[in-house]
């Protein structure tokens, strides 16, 4: 592809990062306005597959789009967790200057959690759906080639194998871990982001622990309530005039139990996973910050090396220029993504916490109604 800047200067497109980030700057940022959105992705319909070697779940991924990059306006494919994991790795590799959304945790302790229980599958489905929607909303990531294949290919495995072969043939490492370069000091704004992420994930961790503790206490409260209600019934059996009010109290406590169970379930299935997602998000973001540091370190080192050679060269060597480009692109991409992330985070947490408040209100309303 021949890309040129608006003023006509040809651009070096050998480094994938710079080309996509230029595309980014030239493209309209349309993820905020629903009306201009031209790509819709949904994850639903989980199905269990039992094979000789293993049992696993697949999810249906439905795509609706008017984008030219897609051959058809609609697609429907089935994908399993492995495929999402593959996609994420590919995105990290090919778009190292961007923040890639997190996936729900890969490994689950087999004894403790039932991987095939309705609740677990549903929680995972929601997280996978969120994952794809975040990519869809991203002005750069949503145009990624691997993402396109993920959404459209009938046989993803064939493409995966092909991709592996290509990679080893070309030997091109798109990784920015150029190794050995140590950054002297992180620029203020990125240092601030790093600090923010540290505190942020710390606080989320605390909230996660508090929420878990509350759920635990609620379940213990539930155990006692389950014994408490029937005693009123027993007493009601002894009495004549009092049997009605006693039965009434017993029934009321029973309803309280049901409502409480629902509240705890909701918190476990809807609240905790989102918290954990954001903690994972923060971790991966910190890694991207580190990569950025690496890129800057390499540039600074090369620049220094040139400055030390006292040859009079009229212009700066091209590879140093390339490094400078990389740094500037990385910084720009990262800043844009951070802004987007902050906005989304605010909305996500607003929704999450309002949801938590709502569920508690509903609990009390249910109990009130029967009292």
């Amino acid at each position, binding site marked *: 592809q021949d890309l040129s800047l608006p003023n006509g200067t040809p651009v070096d497109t050998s480094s994938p990062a710079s080309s996509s980030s230029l595309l980014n700057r030239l493209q309209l940022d349309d993820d905020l306005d629903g009306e201009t959105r031209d790509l819709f992705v949904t994850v639903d319909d989980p199905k269990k597959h039992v094979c000789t070697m293993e049992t696993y779940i697949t999810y249906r991924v439905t795509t609706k789009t008017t984008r030219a990059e897609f051959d058809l306006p609609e697609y429907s494919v089935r994908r399993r967790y492995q495929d999402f994991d593959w996609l994420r790795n590919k995105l990290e590799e090919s778009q190292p200057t961007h923040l890639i959304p997190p996936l729900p945790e890969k490994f689950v302790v087999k004894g403790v959690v039932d991987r095939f229980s309705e609740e677990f599958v549903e929680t995972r489905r929601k997280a996978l759906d969120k994952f794809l929607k975040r990519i869809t909303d991203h002005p750069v990531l949503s145009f990624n080639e691997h993402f396109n294949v993920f959404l459209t290919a009938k046989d993803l495995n064939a493409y995966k194998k092909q991709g592996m072969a290509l990679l080893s043939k070309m030997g091109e490492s798109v990784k920015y871990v150029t190794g050995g370069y140590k950054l002297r000091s992180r620029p203020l704004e990125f240092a601030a982001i790093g600090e923010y992420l540290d505190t942020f994930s710390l606080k989320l961790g605390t909230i996660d622990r508090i929420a878990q503790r509350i759920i635990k206490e609620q379940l213990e409260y539930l155990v006692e309530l389950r014994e408490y209600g029937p005693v009123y019934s027993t007493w009601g059996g002894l009495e004549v005039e009092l049997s009605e*009010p006693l039965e009434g109290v017993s029934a009321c406590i029973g309803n309280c139990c049901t409502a409480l169970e629902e509240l705890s379930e909701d918190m476990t299935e809807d609240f905790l996973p989102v918290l954990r997602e954001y903690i994972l998000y923060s971790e991966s973001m910190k890694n991207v910050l580190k990569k950025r540091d690496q890129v800057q370190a390499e540039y600074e080192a090369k620049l220094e090396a040139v400055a030390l050679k006292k040859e009079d060269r009229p212009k700066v060597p091209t590879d140093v220029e390339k490094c400078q480009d990389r740094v500037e692109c990385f910084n720009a991409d990262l800043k844009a993504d951070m802004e987007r992330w902050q906005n989304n985070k605010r909305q996500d947490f607003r929704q999450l916490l309002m949801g938590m408040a709502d569920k*508690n209100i509903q609990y009390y309303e249910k109990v009130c109604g029967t009292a």
Partner: protein
Amino acid sequence: MEDCLAKKMEITVSEAEKRTGRNAVNIQETYTAYLIETRAVESQSEGQCAPVDSLWRRYSEFELLRNYLSVTYPHIVVPPLPEKRADFVWHKLSADNMDPDFVERRRIGLENFLLRVASHPVLCQDKIFYSFLTQEGGWKEMVNETGFQLKADSRLKALNATFRVKNPDKRFTELKHYSDELQSVISHLLRVRARVADRLYGVYKVHGNYGRVFSEWSAIEKEMGDGLQSAGHHMDVYAASIDDILEEEEHYADQLKEYLFYAEALRAVCRKHELMQYDLEMAAQDLTAKKQQCEELATGTVRTFSLKGMTSKLFGQETPEQREAKIKVLEEQIQEGEQQLKSKNLEGRDFVKSAWADIERFKEQKNHDLKEALISYAVMQISMCKKGIQVWTNAKECFSKM
């Protein structure tokens, strides 16, 4: 129908005070004294209040009063005292008798006890009770002078009667079973309720941690900061609200406890009936035996095996004079026995009649009181829910401003 004391006199247990003094075995001890205040209710309201009389009593004196009333009026379901030691506590409540919350609840319980006695149609007329309320010095001596301790039935005697009685009134047997079951079910209820309270306390208090972490988080946020901070405040309010809620519930538990102890009073009346009935049956049995003996002596036939028969065979028959004397003694005893039996029968029937009247009165009181208690418990729960809705609605609003 004479007005009961409660209508003529205002009675309150208004204060509690820690005291130290020497007890019966001359050892220094700390105890709590309660101030009983009484005031006559004026029938004409002249805008002037009668003067308040007051005196101090300690728990052991209340116990003495109750024992006296139980022994003196065995056909009455005597109101119970509040518990001697804190029972059915959950972790926040203290089991210490000196704990101010316990003392306060006991004060209320003692006042309740006095009001119950004062509104009882029979008990309120008792002079010892009146003196308890009005006469500070010399009351203990007065009680002991009544010699009521002598009238008290021994526990062993009562137990014996319970096992051996043949024909108790069926209603009392049923009532005894009812009070056993009532005692069992209320105990169970109070135990579980204490655990429920404990757990609920835990749930509310952990929410307080949200307050702190939201505050810390808000410090690093720009737009989200205010919303988080104020929501955190509401979480603190939520966590603190449980203290008042559970305090109110203790009052409900106390109401249940009163009827737990009332079950014991019911049992006491049943036991008295069994004792009297057994006594009656024994007296009747004794009388029959004596009549039989008399007949045997008179007719010279020995129908059943008896020591008399044996000794007659061994040592020879007694003289006719001896026999005459014996018959005469027996006839006297039989006459006495018949009188006694008659009066015991009468006593027994009177007891059953008056006891059952009081039991009916008690049943109505119990149904009324417990219904009210259950309703107020339901109201408490509704109020707790409304508070919860309020707090979370406030928090939700704060979140919406994030």
